[in-house]
């Protein structure tokens, strides 16, 4: 008797949780700060049937997560534009988008076309742009006024006073600095390997000059603010944040061009709430919501007049960093062909393991 | 006190206080060579603290401890030639029997071949020649006991301390070990200092016993002296079984006092102890069950001498225990008195509810001023 009532109770509980799940849930896999609370609350108020669940991640982990489930578990993901084509080819984790359901008119045409060109497979488009930003350098102008290129990180003048992140960005930046065009070399992987080998030699020789490799925005900020380093490779948003606290610290687009990325919207292949996902995309494209979003992320929305929708301090930081010529000079990350991650990974390991000197 | 090198162990005015607790309070003792000495007292009387001071685990606040006439106050425990058998034996479980016994020899830097000889020899002497390679867990309780003693004796100590080592054994084994310990002591001819709260262990084994209470030695003497001629009420009550009454002295003459107990009985008793009580003083009266004669009441009362006590009562219950059988008699004042009886199994035996008369002499009744 007791067992039966327990069973009934269990069944009832299960039934209830099933109905609860029926109220639509939108599961977003995105970057930290890309789903600010205020915006989520506002959205849920506008669409009371939809509940938002956010998981924060980064490019590599997003793809690993989707790969593990074959594209299930999330309804909307936001990888960068160069991480879609090869990942889709190799792991089949996204589904094509219906552009008619998105207010693409609001998006900057260059960004939209760029993303489309990068993510079209067999005539289907797999992503639309959301926000864009750059990777480049930052320097304390009072201590390193002439800092201008990727190669300056290895300038003995700044021995022990610079930092970088040991990831693919610094490989690409150093390649550009050496006068190569790594993105063009993606077409010929043997040639690319040659470039990588030379980049590795340069960065190994440079190890002595580096104080430490930073691992995240926090340790980079701490080193920069405390003056332990005077210049570093950086994400622009980190540099903008520091500019707010110390006007001497500015983002420096390298003379060979800052490397630009566009974070996108994509639909995971086994996502279950496409309509809700489209609603969210259109929702965050609305100008007043763009403002909220940019205030949280520090990145520029890929909408017309996106820069003007930045909060005042961030706008000042961007204006201090970029001239129109710099914007012209941006190098958008090219699609990563299959196999390149492995080549780059090996090169990074080689640099890390090389005992230049401690 | 004159130091005497014939004594294996001497304590002179030893004191040890823990805060306001006087664990050991001015204790002096002398133990002659080769004797079996027991310290008997209730738990918490300070006997363990005293032993730990002798072994060197505690330092006395005052007084001196001498082994073979030499003060060991400044000698650390591992340099004193006093070995100890611990309450739970403290055999080393990670070593086998051989290694347990060899441990002390190794510490003393004895050569390997000599260790071998000595260990074999001591195992022979405790009649366990074949257990050298056994693990400790494979030994019986009695064997462990003997190994613990052998582990000490192989070092040829001046004094062996034993801290209630029989406490953990079952009754039968305990009885057997009492005898065995005594034999071992004779065999090794070493001074044993034995600590216990069990009076039968102390009485059976010892040459001399010290009764300890509240940090002080109350009386020291042979077991017979303590039993038959206690110097204080505590000793009379603690050593052996006894009946006890509290009362007041009505008159005293020639070492015999007439006493009225709190329950209204009148009895005559020999006066013991250091202080002779005066008329009206409070006293404690003791009489041992084996000195009480039990007779069936009725019939003509036998002639009773002047120095006899008589008490009428009814048998409440019979505690049959073979030769040590005993009756509990309820007297007129509803008190229970114990008396030893002989039960033969015949029809004349005493039974419960029988009316009886208890008789005992004044000489075998002891009273102490309280």
């Amino acid at each position, binding site marked *: 008797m007791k067992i039966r009532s327990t069973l009934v109770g269990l069944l009832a509980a299960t039934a209830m949780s099933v109905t609860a799940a029926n109220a639509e849930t939108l599961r977003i896999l995105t970057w930290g700060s890309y789903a600010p609370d205020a915006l989520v609350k506002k959205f849920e108020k506008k669409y009371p049937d939809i509940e938002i669940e956010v998981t924060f991640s980064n490019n*590599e982990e997003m793809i*690993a997560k989707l790969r593990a489930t074959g594209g299930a578990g999330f309804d909307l993901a936001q990888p960068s534009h160069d991480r879609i084509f090869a990942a889709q080819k190799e792991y089949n984790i996204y589904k094509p988008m219906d552009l008619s359901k998105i207010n693409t008119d609001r998006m900057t045409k260059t960004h939209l076309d760029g993303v489309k060109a990068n993510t079209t497979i067999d005539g289907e488009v797999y992503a639309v742009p959301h926000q864009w930003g750059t990777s480049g350098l930052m320097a304390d102008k009072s201590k390193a006024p002439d800092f201008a290129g990727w190669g300056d990180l290895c300038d003995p003048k700044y021995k022990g006073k610079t930092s970088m992140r040991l990831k693919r960005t610094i490989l690409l930046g150093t390649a550009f600095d050496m006068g190569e065009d790594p993105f063009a070399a993606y077409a010929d992987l043997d040639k690319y390997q040659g470039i990588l080998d030379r980049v590795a030699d340069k960065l190994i020789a440079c190890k002595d000059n580096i104080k430490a490799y930073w*691992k995240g925005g926090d340790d980079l900020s701490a080193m920069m603010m405390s003056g332990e380093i005077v210049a570093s490779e950086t994400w622009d948003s980190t540099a903008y944040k520091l500019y707010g606290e110390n006007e001497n610290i500015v983002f420096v687009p390298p003379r060979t061009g800052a490397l630009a990325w566009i974070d996108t919207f994509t639909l995971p292949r086994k996502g279950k709430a496409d309509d809700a996902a489209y609603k969210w995309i259109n929702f965050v494209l609305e100008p007043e919501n763009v403002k909220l979003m940019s205030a949280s992320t520090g990145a520029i929305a890929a909408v017309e007049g996106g820069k003007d929708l930045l909060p005042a301090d961030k706008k000042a930081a961007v204006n201090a960093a970029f001239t129109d010529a710099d914007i012209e000079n941006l190098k958008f990350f090219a699609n990563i062909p299959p196999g390149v991650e492995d080549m*780059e*990974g090996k090169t990074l*390991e080689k640099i890390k393991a090389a005992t230049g000197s401690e | 006190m004159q130091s005497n090198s014939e004594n294996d162990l001497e304590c002179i005015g030893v004191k040890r206080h823990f805060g306001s607790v006087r664990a050991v309070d001015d204790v002096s003792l002398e133990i002659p060579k080769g004797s079996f000495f027991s310290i008997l007292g209730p738990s918490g009387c300070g006997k363990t603290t005293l032993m730990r001071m002798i072994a*060197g685990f505690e330092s006395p606040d005052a007084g001196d401890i001498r082994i073979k006439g030499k003060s060991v106050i400044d000698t650390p425990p*591992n340099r004193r030639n006093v070995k100890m058998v*611990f309450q739970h034996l403290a055999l080393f479980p990670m070593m086998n029997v051989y290694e347990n016994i060899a*441990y002390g020899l190794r510490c003393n830097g004895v050569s390997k071949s000599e260790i071998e000889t000595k260990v074999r020899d001591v195992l022979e002497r405790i009649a366990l020649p074949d257990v050298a390679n056994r693990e400790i867990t494979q030994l019986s309780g009695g064997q462990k006991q003997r190994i613990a003693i052998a582990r000490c004796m192989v070092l040829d100590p001046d004094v062996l301390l034993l801290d209630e080592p029989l406490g953990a054994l079952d009754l039968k084994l305990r009885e057997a070990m009492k005898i065995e310990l005594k034999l071992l002591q004779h065999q090794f001819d070493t001074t044993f200092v034995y600590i216990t709260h069990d009076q039968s262990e102390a009485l059976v084994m010892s040459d001399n016993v010290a009764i300890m209470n509240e940090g002080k030695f109350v009386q020291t003497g042979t077991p017979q002296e303590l039993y038959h001629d206690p110097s204080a009420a505590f000793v009379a009550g603690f050593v052996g079984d006894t009946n006890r009454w509290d009362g007041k002295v009505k008159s005293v003459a020639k070492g015999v006092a007439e006493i009225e107990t709190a329950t209204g009985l009148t009895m005559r008793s020999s006066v013991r102890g250091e202080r002779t009580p005066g008329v009206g003083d409070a006293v404690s009266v003791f009489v041992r069950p084996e000195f009480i004669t039990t007779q069936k009441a009725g019939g003509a009362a036998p002639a009773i001498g002047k120095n006899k006590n008589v008490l009428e009562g009814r048998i409440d219950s019979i505690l049959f225990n073979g030769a040590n059988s005993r009756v509990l008699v309820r007297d007129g004042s509803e008190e229970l008195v114990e008396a030893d009886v002989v039960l033969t199994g015949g029809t004349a035996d005493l039974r419960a509810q029988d009316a009886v008369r208890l008789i005992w002499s004044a000489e075998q009744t002891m009273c102490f001023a309280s």
Partner: protein
Amino acid sequence: MAGMVQKDIKRLSLYLLFAPFALWIALLIVLPHLGMFYISLREKVGPRVYEFGFENYTNFFLEPIYWNTLLRTGSMSLLVTALALVLGFPIAYYIAKIAGNRTRGALFLMCLIPLWVSDLIRAFGWILLLRETGVVSSSLQWAGMIDTPIEFLYNDAAVIMGLVYTVILFMIVPLVSTLDGMDKSMIEAGYNLGGNGPTVLRRIIIPYAMPGIVAGCIVVFMLTAGSYLTPILLGGKNSSWFTEQIYDQFITRYNWESGAAFGFLLLAFTSFVVWAGLKLSGQTLNSTVANN
């Protein structure tokens, strides 16, 4: 008849009791490992094309960077284990044998506190202390002991210190529980029979505590070799840790196949070290870890 039913019920309840454990082992340990093992035996030929083979394993042995990193991780983990033992033993001894009941609880609590904050926070704590402009460096400067700031962070010493700090509790707990079981009179007997301090420590306390020592060492070694955040955050330019290598294979390089192989190699390596340690100390798993 009733007896049979009783027996069946008894057996059923036994199965039911065992079921959660069996499920846990099967679903969360055995199955994932089988899956991992399967993945580790796949060679990538092209996009979505795989072949069966041992290439992922042979790659490890052919590339010195990989096995050097594994050896480095192993030797540093051994060093951390040794330091944790040397530092943890006196603490455990104090807690188990010297401290009173109340201090004991307080001491245990103090050892536990580091575990209440996450790995990440703990690592940041060390970073704040050790960095060039951090607490240690500036206090030394203030005290006039050094002239210019010193960087204590980003080197192997910082990694080892951070790891020891994190894992020492796992050394202390089994040690305390073993030493707790040791009768104080065992130590006194050691002295009484003529042993001095070092002899008692070497011949009695350490052999008695051996199961706890080995158990603590196993746990600490496994935790250290498998740790990720502390070595990454405190480590310097050259200090690679094998778990970082595995993470990179899985996440950065999308190379699950070789990541899985590396995972198994780490498992095999640590198992081998534990086995060798047990052999050397003459202990068994039963007498150590299972005992605690």
